[in-house]
């Protein structure tokens, strides 16, 4: 596995081809995604004011992204006043260095982790391991992925690519203390993980988390989770390091109102989030006594500089777009080569990495638009995909082909000529369909080639006007 998990190659089509061969994966995904999709649809339908909620949430994010420099400084000031230490990290390496420094200073050999995409993005676990420090995931699905020595394949349900039988086998093989007669009942699997994790929580001296929101006016951090493991990590250890992407800042406490309604309904399909932990700096005698907050850029200011692409930073990581994506449903998350898979990943990963990177991802979409419709922040993902496609340079042969076609389609005179040529060439098209040439074979493996009409519509029109 790579150190960081952002835009690892091969290209999407190659990675997807391998994923498609995994029939177990396809069936796991179909089952899990149908369930989660239906749950979301039901709880969203309960809210007649859903569209207003979306607008309110997006407005708060837009305000924050429009004034990020001021708000981040305000956040730093207020968090510092409350007793936290704020660090600024331009890169993944900078952020990881803070975690390492804190751990080393306290002589810590094991840290517990709250499920966090940002820490996966910058490869905290791998970096700590290189220095002899074990990072233990405490979210059930993250634990599964870590035990399997894999990457998460979904931002909300990281082990969605595994079914319960696969998880049972994994636990028997690698989970310390798993009973030898472990069944594949979800309850039994969770219990085995719980017993294992409990001892971890009680002995941990340092935790590493991400954060769902950073409130500028109070200097507070917000962590949203479903299992209570996050709260354990945020209250038991003495030392806490939180890695916060700079786009997570919100101006006001009140902005949580829309966010905390949009997020659970869009992600887990719940009306209310089960565990919401909010803490502000250090409280003597209660919770961590040393709090470090790392404000992470790692490409985000580049995204912000693109007036179209920047909308991707409004993402609240709910995963609704992933759960409705016809492409993700067939390939799963690993094909995207990033901690951010699916539609949001296809626009976020290439932008975080910068020009010339992960260029196959904006093309990993049919532009069906389902992602845009479900996005609680109204991010127009299809339009950003198209925008990013237009920002790239293209292979020379492909460019030449598109130029020829553009010339043929540009106006009526040329299109009439093209229609005539196509009509004459229909025999050739049939022939090509029968003897699949490279390039055409990709299409004809699943579908017949369309054959041009003998007489174009234009020709018909002249005799029927």
């Amino acid at each position, binding site marked *: 596995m790579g150190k960081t998990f952002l835009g690892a190659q091969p290209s999407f089509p190659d990675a997807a081809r391998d994923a498609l061969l995994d029939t177990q994966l396809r069936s796991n995904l179909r089952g899990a995604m149908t369930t989660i999709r239906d749950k979301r649809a039901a709880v969203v339908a309960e809210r007649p004011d859903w569209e207003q909620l979306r607008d309110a949430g997006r407005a708060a994010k837009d305000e924050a992204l429009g004034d990020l420099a001021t708000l981040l400084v305000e956040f730093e000031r207020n968090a510092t006043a409350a007793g936290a230490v704020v660090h600024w990290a331009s890169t993944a390496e900078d952020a990881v260095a803070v975690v390492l420094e804190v751990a080393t200073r306290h002589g810590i050999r094991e840290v517990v982790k709250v499920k966090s995409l940002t820490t996966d993005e910058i490869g905290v676990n791998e970096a700590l391991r290189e220095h002899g420090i074990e990072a233990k995931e405490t979210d059930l699905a993250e634990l599964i992925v870590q035990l399997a020595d894999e990457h998460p394949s979904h931002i909300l349900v990281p082990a969605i690519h595994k079914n319960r039988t696969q998880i049972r086998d994994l636990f028997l093989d690698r989970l310390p203390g798993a009973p030898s007669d472990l069944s594949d009942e979800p309850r039994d699997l969770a219990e085995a993980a719980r017993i294992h994790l409990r001892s971890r929580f009680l002995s941990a001296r340092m935790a590493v988390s991400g954060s769902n929101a950073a409130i500028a006016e109070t200097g507070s951090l917000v962590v949203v989770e479903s299992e209570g493991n996050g709260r354990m990590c945020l209250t038991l250890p003495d030392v806490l390091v939180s890695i916060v992407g700079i786009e997570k800042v919100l101006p006001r406490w009140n902005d949580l109102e829309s966010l905390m309604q949009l997020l659970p309904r869009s992600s887990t399909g719940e009306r209310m989030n089960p565990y919401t932990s909010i803490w502000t700096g250090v409280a003597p005698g209660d919770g961590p006594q040393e709090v470090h907050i790392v404000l992470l850029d790692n490409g985000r200011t580049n995204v912000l500089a693109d007036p179209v692409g920047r909308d991707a930073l409004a993402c609240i990581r709910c995963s609704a777009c992933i759960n409705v994506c016809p492409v993700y449903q*067939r390939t799963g998350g690993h094909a995207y080569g990033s901690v951010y898979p699916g539609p949001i990943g296809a626009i976020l990963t290439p932008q975080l990495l910068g020009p010339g990177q992960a260029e196959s991802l904006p093309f*990993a979409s049919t*532009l069906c638009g389902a992602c845009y419709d479900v996005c609680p922040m109204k991010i127009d993902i299809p339009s950003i995909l198209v925008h990013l496609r237009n920002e790239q340079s293209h292979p020379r042969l492909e460019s030449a082909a598109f130029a020829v076609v553009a010339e043929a389609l540009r106006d*009526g005179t040329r299109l009439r000529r093209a229609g005539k040529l196509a009509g004459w060439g229909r025999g050739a098209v049939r022939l090509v369909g029968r003897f699949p040439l490279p390039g055409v074979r990709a299409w004809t493996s*699943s579908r*017949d080639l369309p054959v041009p009409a003998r007489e174009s519509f234009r020709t018909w029109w002249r005799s029927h006007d």
Partner: protein
Amino acid sequence: MRIGLFVTCLADVVYPQVGVATVTLLRRLGLDVVFPEAQGCCGQMHVNSGYADLAIPMVRSFVEAFEDCDVIVAPSGSCVGSIRHQHRLVAERAGDSALVARVEETVPRVRELSEFLVDDLGIVDVGASFPHRVAYHPSCHSLRVARVGDRPYRLLREVRGLDLVEQRDAEGCCGFGGTFSVKNSDVSGAILAEKTQSLADTDAEFVTSLDAACLMHIGGGFGKQGNGIRTVHLAEILAGTVV
């Protein structure tokens, strides 16, 4: 009212029966329809493939061709969606403010066929008869870009003898996606396989849609599988021109 037909390049060259059906239908409803011959393609294929600059001449020929039409009717939700959402962006890329202004003036006159019938004409029963089992594929761009809503269903329900069947995951994509079906042909084929299966499970004789491109993809899949289900554009059913 001067009604201009934007036939779309795909219907023009590959599926002329879609254009013929649209003209036949509108004439039967007593309307005079013109086909401005200067029209080319809407440019979507180039915009979506990353060649938006090559679409500039297409946008230009579009606004010029339909300059004197009161309403522009197209038998494709996808092309209408592209005109509505992409022509302005293309014109802006060209840095041509006059073109931007002409696009802004032109776009509100554009209708997808079912929008024109239901909204402008106020007709849901066009007097068609089609005694067959039919599945409707609500193409992604008709549904989520042009946003035609339930108009096609309302039109189909009024067709005499037509048995409109339900399918699993009806609003799911067919996997075409233009350039996607070439660059990611394996994933596209996997999505298509599930789409054709859910359509085949309905025992439909025909699959219809507002978009010839999706029908080309779905029909291409049926052809490969040899299952005998036919694809026809909604205009053909409404015009009674299915042969």
